[in-house]
C-alpha cells in the first residue's frame, strides 16, 4: 500500500488525531483560532459533535460523556478556558471515565483576540498534564497521547495549540481509527461527588498524580534532547521549537512536548550537557521561572532576551541570541492601514451610526459588531469579554442611576446566548432601567458563521429548535421587549430613544440576517451626480461600497448589496435605487 503524506492545518490534524484515537464525543464553542477543530471532527463518522452555548457547557458535556466512558475532545480558544475554568479545576479532582483532552488554542500576538493570556498556567493551576505540539503531525499524535495519559492517570489533559499551530499547514500520514468502547457509567460518589468530605480525599490523589506524571514526563518520548553544540542549550516547546531550530541549528535542544509537570531530572541532565540554557518561549516565563527555581549550575536566560509580548520568529531569535540583525527592506511609514471592516450590507452598520448620532455611552461586547469601535462609526466605549456589556451597563446604572438614560448595552445574538442571559436576569431582578440591544443576525459571524441555539440549525446543518429571543427575555421578566429592522434607521432611532427614557429594563432586538447568509440581493443603488452635494452624510456609514472621490459620492456597484442605509441618509435624493436606471436588472 502506498503511504501518502498529506498536508493539513493544525486544527484539521487535531480533529484527525481525535478521530484516529477513537473519540466519540466532540464539544466546543467557536473561537479563533480553535473553531475549525470541531467543524472538522464533525465530518468523521462515529463522532457525536455539537456546538454548545458556551465553553463551560461544552466542558460539562464533555465531562458527562467521559463519565459514560467515551473518549472526548473539548476545544476552545484561550479565553474560553476562563469560562470553563470552574468545571476544569474540579474535574482535576474527580478525574475522568473515558479519556478527556481539552484543547486550548492560544493567540500570542492577538491576531483575533482581546488578550494574549498564556494558558500553560492553567495546566499548572489545575494540576493536570500539558502537551504542546510543534506542528500538524505532532498535533495529531499528541491528541492520542493525551487520551492515553488521561486514562492511565485518571486526569483531564490539556493540549495547547497556538495560532501558528492551528492555522499553519504541515505534512503527516493519516492513520486508521482505533475504536474505543463506551463502557457505560459506573456509580462512584467518592470520585464524582465533590462534597467537601469527598473532595478532601481526592486532593491528595491529585498531588500524588502530579508526582507520578512527572515521572512519566521524564521517560516520555514527547520530551527529547537533540544533541548539538555544548556551548548553547535551548529549551523550548510548541511552535517556538521550530523558530529556534531554524535560527539556532547548532545548539543542543531540549524539546518539551509533554511540558507540565516539568521533567526536572531530564532538565538537569540537559543542563549538565551545556554551558548555558536559553529558554525560548512565547509570552510568560513559564519554563524559565521553574528552571530558575531549580538552581541549576548553568546560567538560564529567556525573557531578558525576548520579552513578554507577542509572537516570536526565527529572525527575532537570531537577533536576540546571535546578534545577527537583518536589515529588511525599508518602506515608507505612511502606508494607509487596512483594518477589517463591516461588510457592505452588514446589519450592524445602521445601529452604530445611530448610536453615534445619539451620542450615547455604548457598553460593547465581542463579535463582528465590535468593529463599530473603529472610525468612522467610532461608537463603542468598552469591550472586555463575551457577555460583559450587559453587566457593565447595569454596574454603571447602579453607580449612577442617571447614566442609564444615556447608556446602552450592545450584544450579538451568539454572545447573548453564550453569557448575556444571566446579567440580563440581574438587571430585571434588580429593576435596573437599562437598555439592552441584541443584534440578531442569525449567526455567529465573527468566527466564520457557526450555528447557535438561536439559528434553528445544528452544527451539521440539521433543523433544530431555535430559541425565541423575545420569549426568552419576557420569561426572565423583561416587560419591554421589541424587535426592529436593522435597516430602518428612523425606527431604530425612535425605539432607542423611547427605551432610554423608560424607567425599567428594556430589550431591543435588532434583526436582519448577516449578509454572508444571503445569496441574492436587489440591484445596487447609484448616485445621481447632479443631485449629490458631496455633503458626505452617506460616507459616515463607513461602507466599503461608498467613497468620496471628486465632486460626488460613488457607489461601487460590484459590492453594493442594496441595504438602502445610504439612501435613507441622503437629504438630496441623490442616492437612487437601481429600478430607476435602465439596463440594470
Amino acid at each position: 500500500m502506498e503511504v501518502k503524506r498529506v498536508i493539513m492545518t493544525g486544527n484539521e490534524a487535531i480533529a484527525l488525531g481525535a478521530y484516529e484515537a477513537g473519540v466519540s464525543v466532540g464539544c466546543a464553542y467557536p473561537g479563533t483560532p480553535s473553531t475549525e477543530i470541531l467543524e472538522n471532527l464533525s465530518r468523521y463518522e462515529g463522532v457525536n459533535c455539537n456546538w454548545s452555548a458556551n465553553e463551560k457547557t461544552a466542558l460539562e458535556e464533555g465531562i458527562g460523556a467521559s463519565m459514560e466512558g467515551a473518549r472526548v475532545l473539548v476545544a476552545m480558544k484561550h479565553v474560553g478556558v476562563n469560562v470553563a475554568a470552574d468545571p476544569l479545576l474540579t474535574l482535576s479532582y474527580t478525574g475522568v471515565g473515558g479519556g478527556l483532552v481539552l484543547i486550548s488554542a492560544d493567540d500570542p500576538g492577538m491576531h483575533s483576540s482581546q488578550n494574549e493570556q498564556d494558558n500553560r498556567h492553567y495546566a499548572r493551576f489545575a494540576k493536570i498534564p500539558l502537551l504542546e505540539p510543534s506542528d500538524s503531525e505532532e498535533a495529531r499524535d499528541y491528541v492520542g497521547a493525551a487520551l492515553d495519559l488521561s486514562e492511565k492517570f485518571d486526569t483531564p489533559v490539556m493540549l495547547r495549540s497556538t495560532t501558528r499551530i492551528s492555522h499553519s499547514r504541515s505534512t503527516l500520514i493519516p492513520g486508521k481509527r482505533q475504536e474505543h468502547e463506551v463502557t457505560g457509567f459506573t456509580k462512584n460518589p467518592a470520585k464524582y461527588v465533590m462534597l467537601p468530605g469527598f473532595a478532601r480525599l481526592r486532593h491528595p490523589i491529585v498531588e500524588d498524580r502530579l508526582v507520578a506524571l512527572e515521572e512519566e514526563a521524564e521517560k516520555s518520548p514527547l520530551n527529547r534532547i537533540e544533541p548539538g553544540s555544548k556551548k548553547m542549550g535551548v529549551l523550548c516547546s510548541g511552535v517556538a521549537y521550530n523558530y529556534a531550530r531554524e535560527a539556532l541549528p547548532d545548539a543542543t535542544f531540549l524539546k518539551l512536548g509533554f511540558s507540565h509537570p516539568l521533567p526536572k531530572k531530564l532538565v538537569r541532565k540537559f543542563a549538565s550537557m551545556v554551558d548555558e540554557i536559553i529558554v525560548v518561549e512565547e509570552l510568560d516565563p513559564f519554563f524559565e521561572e521553574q528552571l530558575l527555581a531549580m538552581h541549576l549550575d548553568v546560567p538560564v536566560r529567556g525573557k531578558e532576551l525576548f520579552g513578554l509580548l507577542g509572537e516570536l520568529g526565527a529572525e527575532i531569535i537570531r537577533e536576540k541570541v546571535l546578534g545577527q540583525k537583518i536589515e529588511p527592506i525599508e518602506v515608507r511609514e505612511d502606508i494607509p492601514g487596512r483594518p477589517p471592516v463591516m461588510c457592505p450590507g452588514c446589519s450592524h452598520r445602521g445601529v452604530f451610526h445611530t448610536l453615534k448620532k445619539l451620542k450615547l455611552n455604548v457598553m460593547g461586547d465581542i463579535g463582528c459588531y465590535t468593529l463599530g469601535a473603529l472610525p468612522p462609526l467610532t461608537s463603542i466605549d468598552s469591550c472586555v469579554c463575551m457577555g460583559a456589556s450587559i453587566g457593565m451597563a447595569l454596574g454603571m446604572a447602579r453607580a449612577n442611576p442617571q447614566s442609564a438614560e444615556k447608556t446602552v448595552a450592545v450584544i450579538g445574538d451568539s454572545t447573548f446566548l453564550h453569557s448575556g442571559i444571566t446579567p440580563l436576569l440581574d438587571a430585571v431582578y434588580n429593576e435596573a432601567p437599562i437598555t439592552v440591544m441584541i443584534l440578531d443576525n442569525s449567526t455567529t459571524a465573527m468566527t466564520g458563521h457557526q450555528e447557535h441555539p438561536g439559528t434553528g440549525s445544528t452544527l451539521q446543518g440539521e433543523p433544530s429548535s431555535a430559541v425565541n429571543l423575545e420569549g426568552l427575555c419576557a420569561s426572565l421578566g423583561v416587560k419591554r421587549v421589541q424587535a426592529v429592522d436593522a435597516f430602518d434607521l428612523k425606527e431604530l432611532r425612535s425605539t432607542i430613544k423611547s427605551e432610554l427614557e423608560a424607567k425599567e429594563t428594556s430589550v431591543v432586538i435588532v434583526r436582519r440576517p448577516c449578509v454572508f447568509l444571503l445569496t441574492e440581493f436587489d440591484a445596487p443603488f447609484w448616485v445621481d451626480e447632479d443631485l449629490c452635494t458631496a455633503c458626505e452624510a452617506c460616507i459616515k456609514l463607513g461602507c466599503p461600497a461608498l467613497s468620496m472621490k471628486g465632486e460626488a459620492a460613488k457607489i461601487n456597484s460590484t459590492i453594493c448589496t442594496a441595504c438602502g442605509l445610504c439612501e435613507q441618509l441622503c437629504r438630496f435624493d441623490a442616492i437612487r435605487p437601481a429600478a430607476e436606471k435602465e439596463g440594470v436588472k
Partner: protein
Amino acid sequence: MENQKSDILIAGVGGQGTILTGRIIASLAISEGLDVKTAETHGMAQRGGSVITHVRIGEKVYSPLIPQGDGDFLLSFEKLEALRWLPFLSPQGTVIVNTQELDPLPVLTGETEYSGGILEEIESKVGRLIAVDALSIDPVTKNARMVNTFLLGILATTMEFEKEKWLKVMEQEIKAKLVDINKQAFEAGWQFANK
C-alpha cells in the same frame, strides 16, 4: 530547487484567495516529495483586512513563518499590499503584483490617500518586479476572483514544476465548477510570463 528552499509570500485583501493559492503551491510541492509548511491569516483580518499567507518549501522546513528579509517571492493580489509586506522579501527577491487598487476604508472615507509611486518604490528595492493589471486580461476580465490563479500562473513559470502538474493539483484543490475558469486564468498567467 535552487539553494534547496523557496519562501513565498502571498498577500492580498481578505477574500482574495491567498489561502487557496498557498494550498495549491503546498500540495504540489509535497506531491513532489518536498517538505512544506504554511502559515495563514484566518479570523478577524478576513473582514476585508490585509491578509498574508506564508508558504515555505524545502528539503526540511522548520518554522512556518518566513522571517523578515528572507522571502524569495511576493505574490500580491493588490498593489498597496505588495508595499505593506515588502519587508518580508529579500532584497534579491521577486515581486509579482496585480496593479489593481482596492481602497482601504480610511481612503474611502477620505481620511487618507492611497499611496502614489508604489511600483517605482518596489522596483527600486527588489531584484525583480512583474507588475500586471490582471483585470485587463482574459479570463480575469470576466471574473475578478481569478486574480489569484492568474498570478499563480506567472509565479509557476519561475518554479521548477511542470505545467501539467500544476493543473492537476488545481483540479484537486478547487471546487469542481470553478476548476475550468481557474485553469484558464493560470494558463493566461503562464502565457503572460512567457511572452
